[in-house]
């Protein structure tokens, strides 16, 4: 164990919000050249603690020591001065700037107040190369997928040359190979003596990279694990307070009738490629692939959010008009999108209002909303999903990431779809909740619903799907049943090698 003075140490941090104590006296220390993983259920207070270090949230009580000396971190700038870099859980990249502009935002290299574009571009290019991100530095952000944006955010944090780097769920929308690359970056940083705080709900990664694990529960320290104590079950026990079984679902043997059929679908993103597949009632079909393979594009097109260039989408044999969301919804399709803050939720609205939005008419009579009925349904749904919040009147912006995800899910469950599309359904969701979500998926399929899932989490892909379609650059490079599937096979297909 390290005995030197930690670079950063917090003691007894308390942060209260109306009705919630997000942090109830948490302590944490970070040493040079160490990767500390902070784990905990959704809403445990991980992000809040990090925001305290980042100068975004001011604690009500507690002290912060920097190199052993007490400091106040009252602004983002102060935090940066202290050598703290931060990758936020909920990304807020500026889509009116390009990649380099985002990476160096707030710290543009300059001469006489004018931006030194040459240096900025060169430095950005270097970082992108380090992350093996094949995009050019002047790509407008609007043209990047969520995952690519996350990589840009990581590049930004790296450019800080921080002494302490906080990564709040950096891999939540990354696939295996990007994750592997990121973990390599983390190891390199550790070599260089950087202290890294690593927050993730993917416990596999944590096992791989962490030197120490600190668990939070309900805003309190719930225990710690040293390097050689770290394993999946111990972590789960610290977080949840009891044992949980591994999250795999029994594969569903028999399949029902074809629920969704996609024939010759061409999307805007990959206009020259066609995709065809079917999902049966009672089946969980998963689209796997690398970042940017076009999975989200395909499911958004099925949902009608984007128009298809070509192809036929039908539900129970009846074709659905392309590019028309409402018709898709009327045909029984629901989508839990990957970008929950932008399109999944109205983050300023409360849980009740969000959950009932798609099918408000079911809670209304003569065009007028029956608030009572609405409340009953929303409350029941949040209870069923174990959303952690005092009531359904809480603004979704004030919920932790995982709980927000449950609200989006609840919103579509309330509208009883025939085909539920889940794009990264457990992004940022804790182990306990993941298990619950998988249960729900299985319950749905047992009721005859078809589930189409996009996932970048290999454990999830292998543990939950009945069949797996792997995409590579806009086309399906292969389909595997659960029994056939292995990590290697999926990866081979994902990079476009189909050598059966």
């Amino acid at each position, binding site marked *: 164990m390290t005995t030197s003075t930690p670079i950063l140490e917090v003691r007894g941090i308390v942060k209260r919000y109306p009705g919630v104590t997000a942090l109830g006296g948490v302590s944490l220390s970070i040493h040079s050249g160490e990767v500390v993983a902070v784990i905990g259920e959704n809403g445990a207070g991980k992000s809040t603690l990090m925001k305290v270090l980042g100068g975004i949230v001011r604690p009500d009580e507690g002290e912060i020591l920097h190199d052993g000396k007490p400091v106040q971190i009252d602004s983002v700038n102060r935090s940066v001065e202290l050598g703290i870099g931060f990758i936020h859980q909920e990304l807020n990249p500026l889509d009116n700037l390009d990649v380099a502009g985002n990476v160096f935002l707030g710290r543009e290299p300059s001469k006489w107040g004018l931006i030194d574009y040459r240096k900025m571009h060169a430095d950005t290019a270097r970082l992108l190369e380090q992350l093996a991100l094949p995009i050019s530095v002047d790509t407008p952000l609007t043209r990047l997928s969520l995952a690519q944006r996350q990589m840009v955010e990581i590049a930004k944090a790296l450019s800080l040359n921080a002494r302490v780097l906080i990564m709040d769920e950096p891999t939540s929308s990354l696939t295996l190979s990007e994750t592997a690359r990121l973990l390599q970056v983390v190891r390199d940083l550790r070599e260089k003596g950087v202290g890294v705080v690593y927050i993730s709900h993917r416990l596999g990664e944590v096992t791989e990279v962490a030197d120490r694990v600190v668990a939070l529960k309900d805003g309190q320290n719930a225990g710690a694990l040293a390097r050689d104590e770290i394993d999946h079950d111990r972590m789960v026990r610290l977080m949840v307070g009891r044992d949980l079984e591994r999250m795999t679902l029994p594969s569903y043997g028999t399949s029902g009738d074809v629920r969704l059929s996609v024939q010759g679908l061409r999307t805007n993103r990959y206009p020259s490629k066609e995709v065809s597949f079917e999902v049966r009632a009672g089946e969980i079909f998963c689209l796997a692939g690398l970042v940017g393979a076009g999975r989200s594009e395909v499911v958004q097109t099925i949902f009608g959010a984007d128009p298809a260039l070509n192809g036929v989408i039908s539900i129970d044999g009846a074709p659905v008009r392309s590019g028309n969301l409402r018709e898709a919804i009327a045909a029984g399709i629901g989508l839990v999108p990957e970008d929950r803050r932008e*399109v999944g939720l*109205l983050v300023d609205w409360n849980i009740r209002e969000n959950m009932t*939005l798609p099918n408000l008419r079911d809670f209304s009579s003569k065009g007028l909303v029956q608030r009572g009925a609405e409340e009953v349904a929303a409350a029941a749904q949040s209870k069923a999903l174990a959303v952690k919040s005092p009531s359904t009147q809480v603004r979704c912006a004030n919920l932790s990431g995982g709980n927000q995800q449950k609200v989006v899910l609840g*919103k579509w469950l309330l509208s009883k779809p025939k085909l539920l599309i889940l794009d990264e359904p457990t992004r940022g969701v804790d182990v306990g909740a993941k298990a619950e979500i998988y249960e729900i998926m299985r319950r749905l399929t047992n009721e005859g619903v078809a589930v189409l899932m996009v996932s970048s989490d290999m454990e999830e892909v292998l543990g939950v799907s009945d069949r797996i379609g792997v995409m590579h650059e806009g086309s399906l490079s292969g389909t595997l049943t659960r029994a056939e599937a292995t990590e290697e096979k999926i990866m081979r297909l994902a990079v476009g090698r189909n050598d059966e």
Partner: protein
Amino acid sequence: MKGLIRKETGIFVLLVVLCLVTALKEPRFLSAQNLVNTSRLIGLYGIFSIGAGLVIITGGIDLSVGSMFALLGVLLAMWLSEKHWSPMLAIAAVLALGTALGTFHAFLITKLRMQPFIVTLCGLLFYRGMARFIANDETKGFGGAQGFESLQKFATGSLFGLPMPVVILLVVSLIMGVLLHRSVWGRHLFAAGRNEEAARYSGINTVRVIGSTYVIGGFLAAIAGILIAFYTNSISPSGHGNFYELYGIAAAVLGGCSLRGGEGSIVGILLGTILLQVLRNLVIFLNIPSSLEFAVIGAVILIGVLADQTLSRRAALRRTT
């Protein structure tokens, strides 16, 4: 929701204080006659301010109402006094035209995806020009003309002691209040105004919802336009309704509608309208020189909003700590 109620309390208190101060200095301020006069104006302005507010809740803006008043007013006067149309027909035509113009804005904004500011700015310019052209730059009015006295009486008269514009405003507020705050349409409107993409992903027909506010705005502008025309009794195409779009927007914003969309209430818009009219009225009753009228209105609004904000922030702080 709580935020909204608090917002409205602030402006309500400001209003009460202003009225008390003025009434103390000049009791005639509260005379029946003045209440009738002022409430008539509140009726006229309130009707189109509600339209302005609805559009603002969608995150849009409507700059065209002032010019629409000129165009509709000129046409109404010409149809009635020069072409001698039947009052029913003329009114129906004005209402239809107002609604059609609103629908046209809705089409450009939601279907062709033009910016509301540009579309309605062009409306502001175009309708004003058309009004002047059609009227050949002459003032049109209802002067000594005949055949529509009962319509005129209706528009300028009273019902149960309430001036007709107030009666109409009450009806409009009631309907729009229920629609906005209780109906599915209203909920969808707030959703589309707050985050159009997210609303669309929830299956809301954002085109129809957002578009509908411009249509309603056009219809309400037509009603207000008719009442204002009969109130002034004459319509100078170049000046009639100038700046009214700003009054409507100001009433809505004062009443808590956010220009970023997704926020606002009918009660708030009404209070905003009342505040603006009371301020105008009070300048005269307090013997403030005409030249200072605007300065007083500007200063009171600023101080009022500031005080309101400070108070409510304090209250919020007290709640959290």
